[in-house]
Structure formats: C-alpha cells, structure tokens
C-alpha cells in the first residue's frame, strides 16, 4: 500500500456567496491545483464531496461538470455523499485511490450551496437523512442535539455554561480565520441569552447555514517530493457507522462511529490520542465537541466538558480544538466541511496558519454525518523531505 501525501490545499470564503455550486467547486479546485503546482491534465481521479446539490439547487452531475470546468477531462470522477461527513468520506475515497495504486494524482473538492434556501427549508433537506419514524415526528438534527445535550448535562452533572464556552472559544478562533463566515467574538452572556432552538440549546450553540468549498490534492509520498519540500502525510484514516435510528443506541451520549473510526485511524498511524497536537472536531452543535473529545480518547466519558473549563482546548492549551473557528464560526457548507477541517490541519502542519498557528506535528480531523450516523477520522503528520 502506497504512503499517501497531501501536496495542495485550498478553501474559498465561507458564508453567504453569490456563486452557485459549480462556481464554488471550480474556485476551490483551481486554487488547489495552483497551491500544489499540478496541472489539471495530471489529475487522474477527481472526487466531489457534496450532500445535496440536486435538492438545494437542481444541479446534479457535479463531478463531471467540475472535470470540464477545470479542464481535467478525462479524469475519473465520482460524487461522494455521506451527508455532513461527505468531506471526510471524500478524504477516505481519495486516500484509497492513491494508496491502492489506482491513481497517482487525486483531486478532492467538497462544496455546498445552501444560503439561498430558508433556514426551515435547509433544515428539512438535512433532516431528510432521518428514518421515516423520525421524520414524521419532525425530528431534525438540531432536535437530536437538544435531546443529547439534556441527557449529557443530566448524566454527567455538567454545567450548561460549559457548552456556551465552546461557542465563545470557537468564535474567538474564527476572528483570525480570513475564510470564516463569522469573524466576531461573542461573550458567554450573549450565548446563554440567545433564543432557544432546541432546549437546552440556544442559537449560539448551532453552526450557521453556509455556502463554500474546499479542496485537497493527494498523491503517493514518493511523488510528493517532486512538488514540495514539505508536505503532509495521511498517516491514519478510519471510517465507521452507527445506527440509522438514533434512539436505538444504548448510550445516546456515545458516538460509536467516532470511537470505531478513530480506533482504526490510531492503529493505522501507530499513534495514540496523546500524540495528537491539534484537532478539528465537527462542532455542528456545541455538544458534539464534548462527545467527540471523549470518544476520540482525549478525555474519559463524561469528563470532556472539563477540558473547556480548564482551558485545555483553547489555542494556547495543551490540545487546541477547532483553531479554524470550527463549523460554529467558520460555517458548515455540508460537503465542504470535512475537507475544510483537513485544510486547517494542513495549514497548521505546514506552519501556514498565521495568527491561528499552534505548535503541531500531528493533527486530527473528525467529520460527522447525521447525528453520528457516519464518521471519518483522519490523522495527518508533517513531513520534511
């Protein structure tokens, strides 16, 4: 199996954009080609991570459209849909294509165009991933977050304020991310006084609806040195699922897909949670940062909330989480988010994160689809050729 390198990375401005899905994908794709110094005709595989361009925009067939727009024809293309974890699943597919020897140059572009729809319409598109017994009751991803947050706070005697502090931290990080949708700090009182969305969670516990795109270029490590003196290696990756029907999980506060996917990633990398220097977690809702922090092995079950209270996950803490601002501040264009998480880790490992820069040799990205239904965890390491 080939060692897989990432030699290029890009992301567009996240937020409310005039561009439609094809334009967003092309913008990130071209920027990634430029960053890697790779010509479009060298791309052998082209993957597009996208959940719902058909439902949002009436535009299907986006991988082929992108191949043409980038002049990457006749590259093999495929669309990767794994709902909110489409980006992570795209990383897995791109890694597989290179590791297996099927492709020597794979471009992954993730993107979503959402903001032209109302919040209610976007919520319904996302909720369409639910089982019929959930959908008919009006269950949404935010309502699953409310259900889980209440159980977590009650079970582990965690203070409501700790969830608010996740939002405060990630907004603070987002201020220094030029691509973030929100570059504005919020204080704890603002978070705790914001309107209720899914009790006990409030508006500032939720990520926004976002347009945006991000891209990564993968090739064999043996080829990477032709393009860069420094690159990032995919040292471990794992994907896993949990039940489609959320209430059938014996412990709703444990995300089995996170546990299983990270176990596989750690094993492949020959690393443990203690080796991780920086991580991007899927904070679609503040409660998810606690659940992933625990299920990735960074804290014991029920202890994850203490990390934010102790400042461990701040930029100057011992394990900075979501230096990009996370989905909370940076935004969450569904298919792009997992790719953008990896973009942030690549920036951190290359030393290109600017004001967000932390001291890191090993980074981790955990991308969650549904309410933990599908998860990809990837571990990246810096390589100096």
């Amino acid at each position: 199996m080939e060692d897989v390198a990432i030699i290029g990375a890009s992301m567009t401005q996240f937020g409310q954009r005039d561009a439609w899905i094809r334009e967003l994908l092309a913008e990130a794709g071209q920027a990634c080609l430029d960053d890697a110094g790779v010509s479009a005709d060298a791309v052998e595989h082209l993957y597009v991570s996208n959940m719902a361009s058909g439902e949002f925009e009436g535009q299907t067939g986006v991988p082929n459209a992108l191949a043409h727009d980038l002049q990457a024809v006749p590259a093999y293309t495929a669309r990767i849909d794994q709902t909110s974890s489409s980006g992570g699943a795209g990383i897995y597919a791109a890694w597989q294509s290179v590791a297996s020897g099927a492709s020597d140059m794979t471009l992954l572009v993730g993107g979503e165009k959402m903001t032209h729809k109302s919040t209610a319409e976007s919520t319904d598109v996302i909720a369409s991933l639910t089982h019929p017994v959930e959908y008919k009751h009006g269950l949404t991803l935010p309502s699953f977050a409310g259900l889980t947050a209440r159980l977590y706070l009650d079970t582990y005697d965690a203070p409501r304020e700790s969830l608010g502090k996740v939002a405060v931290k990630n907004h603070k990080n987002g201020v220094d991310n030029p691509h973030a949708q929100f570059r504005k700090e919020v204080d704890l009182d603002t978070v705790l006084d914001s309107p209720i969305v899914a009790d006990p969670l409030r508006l500032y516990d939720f990520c926004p609806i976002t347009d945006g795109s991000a891209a990564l270029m993968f090739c064999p490590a043996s080829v990477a040195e032709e393009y860069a003196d420094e690159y990032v290696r995919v040292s471990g990756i794992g994907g896993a699922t949990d039940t489609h029907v959320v209430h059938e999980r014996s412990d709703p506060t444990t995300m089995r897909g996170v546990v299983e996917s990270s176990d596989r990633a750690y094993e492949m990398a020959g690393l443990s949670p203690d080796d991780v220097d920086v991580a991007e977690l899927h904070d679609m809702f503040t409660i998810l940062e606690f659940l992933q922090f625990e299920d990735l092995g960074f804290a014991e079950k029920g202890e994850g909330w203490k990390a934010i209270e102790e400042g461990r996950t701040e930029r100057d803490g011992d394990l900075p989480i979501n230096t990009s601002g996370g989905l909370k501040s940076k935004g969450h264009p569904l298919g792009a988010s997992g790719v953008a998480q990896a973009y942030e880790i690549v920036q951190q490992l290359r030393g290109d994160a600017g004001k967000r820069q932390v001291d890191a040799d090993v980074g981790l990205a955990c991308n969650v689809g549904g309410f933990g239904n599908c998860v990809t965890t990837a571990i990246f390491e810096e390589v100096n050729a």
Partner: protein
Amino acid sequence: MSDEPADERSESANGAGSGATRDDAPAFEAARYPDGSITYPAHPTGPGGDEPVGTVDLSEYTAEVVTWTTSTATPPGVREPNHVAIVEFDVDGEPVRAIGQATTGDIDIGDEVEPVYCDQLRDPDAGIREPASQEWDGFRFRPVE
C-alpha cells in the same frame, strides 16, 4: 408549557382530535426477534442477525422518558414548538426505545408516559419527502397522571 390539550384517547396534528380513537387506532408496532430482543421500528434483521418472528404493540405499555427537548426551529409542515422525547418501554423485562412527539413540554427525564395515537403528525405535503413514501400517523407520548 402544555400547549396541546390531548383528546382522551387520540389526537390530530393540531391537537383538535381526529375521530380516530385508541380502539380503532393501528398498533404501535415493534418487532420481536428470535434472541428475545425487540426494536422499534422493525428492521429486516434484528440485533442478532435474524429476521423478526413476531410483533409487540407498544401502545399497551407505558414508558419512561430518557430525554426530551422542545424544538422551536421546525421544518415545513411541523408544529412549532415541537416537543419530542426518547422513551424506553419495559416489555416484560426487555427494554425497547422509541422516539416521538410529546403532548407537552412539561415533562422531565424519568417521567412515566403513555402512547396516544395521532392520525397526522406533520403535513405530508409541506416537506421534502415524497408523501407516498411513508406513513404520517403515529403515537405521541403523554405524561401519566
């Protein structure tokens, strides 16, 4: 916070009653598997990997609230606010969980609730899902007095 005074035995999406009663309501059907496990909803294969061998009508049981929330940002065709709960039934010693709307937001973890039939839980024509692809009636959970 109780905003939907439930009919004694059944209710409709707007809480006004539908004519359907507990007596003519369909069963709140869960599936039983050869290893004794029970799931709601039914699956082609159960936790042990075998096909269902029978059904259980959960409407004959009460349940305990595992957790709940009130959602105020609901999608098209869904009541607002929407109280929902995960509950656990004890079917002769076998735990079975279900999820659904609650008749009130005045509930708490550990409360005892009973299923109450509703002939239309949300407007099938308002959301993204094809109306003919699934059923739209079901059971809400009401606190046991």
